[in-house]
């Protein structure tokens, strides 16, 4: 008898546990039973750092709710997790994601897998999207996503650094991005700065969460080899790595601790820095008179830089498509776009908002970005898209950097080892090597 009761007890407890967790632990259901109240799931690889998330949730989504009455569950997610989850949902047909925000490349990939709705028929009133972005968003006649934000990576200069310019390079060269503003000039400048101040004054976000890999594949690689990955193990690449190792002597060694360059610039630990516009915005804002934003230097093959376009897309068979569209409508309104620029430093994708940039710190930022895009020798790179393998692409560049520049391994050996791996990634996903 005893064991019967004991067993029953076990069973009851297990069931109880299961029920409790079933109620609270399951997917956040959007129970449409009681009222009209819906919650839409918005998964985003953008605006993930804490302060940016706080802005989305405390300001954007609050205002959106006031206007439309729709609740939004904003889920920050890494690109590879997003790809995995979207794939699982599209394959099982149980789609819970209503809206995804990701970079052009990622959305392009999702579209190639037929995971996205065609947004062609729909219109948004009172705004004109910048035509370049519009063109990117239309793939094979299908409107894959709505351009939402754009950004790039630039250099920030503390004006004091102009006193130590190398011979032959003028402040104007740097500000406008002329021929003379090249990677050799940067090396000379950084060297001068170190010799004059006793401290290395150049900084990169090479910390664990920094975006140095973007500098590697989107800036210095195209500048030296003409491509992001195609010439990964070419002789030009070896030359590039040798250059970077030499440059690194004049880079503040605390770089490997920095995730964003805004703070080190503000604290005066470096006078020259490269980073994402959103991550240097706070320095410009705090001291707009002290800093200028300038184009990146050029290399033998041109001035490589990344153009970041983030878009909003609706997954196929998403449960709340109309509500998701309303959110897209809200997020691309000129007023919202200006708000995004002011708060998190991402640039508008609609013309009405571009004209409305207020003077002051943001103008400093905008001028630098415009100067960079206007350089005649631009080699524009888009961040490639590899689905759930996306992490392996950036990992390869970071590994190469660590082994060659930080550990001092022979560049040729390392690129010969990693090059085939990178190329294999693109072949596996059936894509052209950028």
């Amino acid at each position, binding site marked *: 008898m005893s064991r019967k009761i004991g067993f029953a007890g076990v069973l009851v*407890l*297990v069931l109880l*546990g299961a029920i*409790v*967790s*079933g109620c609270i632990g399951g997917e956040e259901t959007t129970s449409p039973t009681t009222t009209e109240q819906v919650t839409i799931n918005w998964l985003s690889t953008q605006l993930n*750092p*804490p302060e940016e998330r706080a802005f989305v949730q405390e300001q954007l989504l609050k205002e959106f709710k006031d206007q439309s009455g729709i609740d939004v569950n904003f889920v920050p997610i890494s690109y590879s997790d997003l790809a995995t989850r979207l794939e699982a949902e599209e394959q099982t047909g149980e789609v819970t994601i209503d809206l995804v925000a990701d970079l052009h490349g990622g959305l392009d990939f999702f579209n190639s897998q037929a995971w996205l709705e065609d947004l062609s028929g729909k219109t948004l009133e009172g705004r004109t999207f910048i035509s370049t972005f519009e063109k990117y968003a239309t793939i094979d006649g299908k409107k894959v996503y709505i351009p939402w934000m754009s950004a790039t990576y630039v250099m920030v200069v503390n004006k004091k650094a102009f006193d130590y310019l190398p011979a032959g390079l003028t402040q104007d060269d740097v500000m406008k991005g002329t021929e003379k503003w090249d990677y050799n000039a940067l090396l000379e400048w950084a060297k001068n700065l170190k010799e004059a101040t006793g401290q290395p004054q150049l900084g990169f976000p090479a910390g664990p969460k920094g975006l140095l890999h973007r500098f590697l594949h989107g800036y210095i690689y195209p500048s030296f080899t003409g491509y992001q990955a195609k010439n990964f193990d070419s002789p030009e690449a070896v030359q590039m790595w040798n250059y970077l190792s030499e440059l690194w002597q004049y880079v503040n060694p605390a770089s490997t601790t920095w995730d*964003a360059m805004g703070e080190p610039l503000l604290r005066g630990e470096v006078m020259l820095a490269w980073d994402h516009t959103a991550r240097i915005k706070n320095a410009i804002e705090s001291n707009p008179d002290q800093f200028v934003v300038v184009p990146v230097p050029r290399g033998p093959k041109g001035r490589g830089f990344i153009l970041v376009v983030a878009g909003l897309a609706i997954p196929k068979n998403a449960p709340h498509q109309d509500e998701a569209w309303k959110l897209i409508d809200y997020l691309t309104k000129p007023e919202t776009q200006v708000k995004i620029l002011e708060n998190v430093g991402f640039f508008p994708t609609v013309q009405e908002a571009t004209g409305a940039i207020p003077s002051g710190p943001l103008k400093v930022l905008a001028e630098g970005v415009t100067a960079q895009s206007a350089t005649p020798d631009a080699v524009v790179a888009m961040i490639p898209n590899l689905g759930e393998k996306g*992490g392996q692409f950036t990992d390869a560049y970071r590994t190469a950097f660590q082994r060659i520049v930080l550990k001092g391994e022979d560049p040729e050996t390392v690129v010969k080892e990693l090059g085939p791996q990178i190329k294999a990634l693109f072949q596996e996903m059936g894509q052209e090597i950028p």
Partner: protein
Amino acid sequence: MNEETKFILKKLVFYAFIFTVVAWIVIPIIISTLYGFALPKDYYDPKKILPTSFTIKYVKTLLITLGALDGIKNSVIVALITIAISFALGIPAGYAVAKFIFPGKDTIKLSIVALRMFPIPVMAIPLVILYIRLHLIDTLLGVALAHTAMSLPFVVLITSSIFAGVSKELEEAAMVFGLTRLGSFFKITLPLALPGLAAAAMFTFVMSWNEVFVASILTLAHRTLPAQILSIMAGASGGAAPDYYKFAAAFIMILPAITFIFFARKYLVTMWGITLK
């Protein structure tokens, strides 16, 4: 130096030692709490060792906007389910080990001791594939099931040692007076073991509450507190968290821990003594 000064000196050295030890534990906690509420300008001011102006902004943002409050809720749910299941499975086993003599008992006890050592958290890696198939991925039940596996050997060992402590004579007397074995368990053994079991529940709670590897691997949206904090501070999606968010997070994580140990301190030392012996 006479005996008396020697004595006083000895005492002084001893108290200096105790003071150092306590300071070593307590100062980091005080500092991180102060920094958790400090304004960034104070934190970045090299002249200010201790901040003087404070804000609750970052703690609030973390709790409400960034979902630490949900993380706390999830952690509590996971811990409670873990306690429920591991007690349901562990108490009978602990009782059997304590009160019965049977062939193979030593082997079973030894295997439970050995299983306690097995890196069950790491086993969450291969578990992911099964969880995806069973739709347990990203559910609190899924995390709790894995946490149960991790805490079950401890629960068996603790409960067996608690039941062994309940005197046989009392139980036998009860059975002489006509109680069945099960009756004597519920009327005599269980009430006597209750304080010990409560402490064991606390132990299980803390284990599950602090676990981060399993929770980070098995969940994405429904994260427990440590997993939530880890993903905000160092996750693939988060990252680039300014320092003052890190301190606010530290405060949110240590406050429950310190409160908890204050109330449970009587049991904890014995409990850890038993389980880790």
